[in-house]
């Protein structure tokens, strides 16, 4: 009896181990492609390095031209005969755009990510990029959204979701893979947040969907961010429209080229739920916008010793008070926490605000909540700031509000 029992048990164990082996075999059938992880590791050391001035040679294709860029530093676009383009982003990822109906060159560098036009089944999980599609009138190219309908401030996006033309497919960290596959998603446009969830990126790529990582927020110049509309112009085949849109915005900055700075200081911050003040590093694009608009950021040299990618700086009220109480203007950043509707609400957050010069003189402004979804209009925002700094008519201001 003991022997047969033993045999039975050994069989059971053998089955368990055999199952494990089977699963390995099953798994080995499907190949997982890992996109340019190696390449990005090598080039990531030089984060803000300019992409190679010499256009990469592609066998079988003749190089035509390089897109002229006025402010953007984080990408380059090379155009080739036949309508092919190569978007080289400074994180080491290279996106090769193949026009509708054209062949993909056979000897293409294997690290290039191939995007085949038309790209009209886009999964957009980088919420900051929706505005680009809006300004290009290309909202219809986005089929799947990483944000629910009520999370959008852009009317056309909201309308598309409400009508069912755009579907919610889960947020960037937990997308509905089945929906992506069923709806034949042709590219997943992600923000750099996806880097914190590498397993999601790998899964999307495993399903055969290329991943495009939007890096507009890494542009040092505010107009550089806006210039990313040209990238999306290439992706959607609306390059002319992109040029047009960009020139519109550029006008605002060009108009201020000769303006003498008012030397008024501006503080830009918000108060988080822990009572800490969250403001920006001096190297961030918002201080840069303030400068272009004709003002000075209240912090001369904040965060220069911190080499992490994040541009937000947390500080306690005491430290903030010491540096910023004499700022001429306060602009409250409402794009992350709730906006404030009156100066009193600011003082309610912390009584010390009452001593600030800007509060005493009534120069407290608040940004629109939708600011983070509006990087396509940085020119307009600069203009708004200029109006604020020069005491212009508050009716003309689009993305800022003066508080009472």
């Amino acid at each position, binding site marked *: *009896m*003991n022997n047969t*029992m*033993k045999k039975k*048990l050994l069989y059971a164990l053998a089955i368990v181990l055999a199952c494990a082996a089977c699963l390995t075999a099953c798994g080995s059938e499907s190949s997982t492609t890992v996109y340019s992880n190696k390449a990005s590791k090598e080039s990531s050391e030089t984060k803000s390095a300019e992409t190679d001035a010499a256009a990469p040679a592609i066998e079988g294709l003749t190089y035509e031209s390089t897109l002229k860029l006025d402010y953007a530093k984080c990408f380059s676009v090379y155009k080739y005969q036949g309508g092919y383009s190569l978007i080289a982003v400074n994180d080491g990822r290279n996106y090769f755009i193949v026009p509708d109906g054209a062949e993909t060159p056979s000897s293409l560098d294997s690290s290039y990510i191939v995007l085949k036009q038309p790209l009209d089944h886009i999964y957009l999980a980088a919420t900051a990029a929706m505005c680009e599609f809006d300004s290009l009138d290309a909202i219809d190219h986005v089929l799947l959204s990483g944000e629910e309908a009520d999370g959008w401030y852009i009317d056309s996006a909201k309308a598309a979701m409400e009508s069912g033309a755009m579907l919610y497919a889960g947020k960037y960290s937990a997308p509905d893979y089945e929906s992506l596959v069923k709806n034949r998603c042709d590219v997943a446009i992600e923000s750099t947040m996806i880097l914190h969830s590498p397993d999601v990126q790998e899964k999307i790529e495993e399903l055969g969907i290329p991943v495009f990582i939007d890096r507009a927020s890494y542009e040092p110049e505010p107009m550089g961010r806006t210039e990313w509309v040209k990238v999306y112009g290439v992706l959607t085949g609306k390059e002319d429209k992109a040029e047009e849109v960009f020139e519109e915005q550029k006008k605002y900055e060009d108009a201020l080229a000769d303006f003498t700075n008012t030397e008024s200081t501006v503080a830009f911050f918000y108060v988080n739920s822990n009572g800490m003040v969250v403001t920006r590093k001096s190297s961030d694009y918002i201080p840069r916008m303030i400068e272009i608009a004709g003002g000075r950021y209240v912090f001369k040299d904040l965060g220069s010793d911190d080499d992490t990618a994040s541009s937000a700086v947390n500080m306690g009220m005491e430290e903030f008070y010491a540096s910023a109480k004499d700022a001429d203007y306060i602009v409250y950043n409402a794009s992350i926490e709730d906006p404030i509707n009156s100066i009193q609400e600011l003082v309610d957050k912390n009584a010390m605000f009452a001593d600030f010069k800007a509060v005493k003189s009534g120069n407290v402004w608040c940004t629109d909540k939708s600011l983070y979804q509006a990087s396509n209009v940085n020119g307009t925002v600069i203009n708004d700031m200029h109006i604020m700094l020069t005491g212009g008519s508050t009716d003309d201001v689009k993305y800022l509000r003066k508080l009472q």
Partner: protein
Amino acid sequence: MTDKYYFRTEALSVGYRGRTLIHDIDIGIQKGELVTLIGPNGAGKSTILKSIIRQLAPIAGAVYLEDERVSRISYKEFSRKTAVLLTERVKPELMTCWDIVATGRYPYTGRLGVLTEEDRAIVRKVMEEARIEDFAEKDFGEISDGQKQRVLLARALCQEPELLILDEPTAFLDIRHKLELLELLRGMTREQGITVIMSLHEIDLAQKVSDKILCVKGDKIFRYGAPAEIFNDALIGELYGIENGSYNAAFGSVEMNKPEGEPKTFVISGCGSGISVFRGLQREGVPFEAGILYKNDIDYQIASSLAARVYAEEPFHFIRDDTYAAALNAIRKSEKVLDTGVPIGDCNHRLAELIEEARKRGVYQKLS
């Protein structure tokens, strides 16, 4: 008489964490003997037992089982020779009594611990011997302490041990179960030749059931020998440091302390009639004298422990003059004389005179 001991220790020192509690333990036990360790609380009885069963490393010296050093025997081999019953409360989850007893077969089962038919037969037999088959299917947590001990003992027996070690096995049991358990143990030593080493607090039981007694006190073995050698009143008192009572080795019983003070009461008794009276007076705290008691009378034993003075006579003698004179003197000084109704015959006819004296003084009281 074989010189070869089944179990012996050689200069064994035991203790915890390098600190010696008891040193130089040299004892030898024959096969089939039942040895009991007695001694005050914290003396080290458990420490010695734990060292023997290899749950505690000895600080020095060695333990031998049939001339083989125990430390050289593999744990598996050792568990086939030695089984234990410990004081700790066992709290198994969802195990029936049968399950518990069956764990005793572990030294004999294969890789996965599956029981063969033979193993099961042994378990059944052992349960019968321990008289626990009736609650074999009951959850262990549902039975009484006495039954639990029997189950754990049955478990130990399933290991088919030659040596059984028990640490205060009767601790939580009532008198009936104490006797049952000890009877069971004794039966095992007789019929199966199992050697038993255990510790007990009930010294009266230890005296009755053991072949040898090991007294543990201080940092050495106080005494080791047969019960007859060990159990005398003085030794027990010294071993335990008894101050509030005394131990009667002959009876194996314990008596409370003598009442203090000059006795004013005299008890005339005999043939056991005085025992309850003596104890009653002790409880009241009333000092008394007792007489005239023959030394072979059971009253004499108790009176020796409880009375301030005993007037005793040698057995099988007529009451002699000096004895009588002393008793009479005492009666003349007493305020109360209690007569427990001892039968008066030829030998002790002088008791009648004592009673008469008491009556004359008006201090006589007859207890019925």
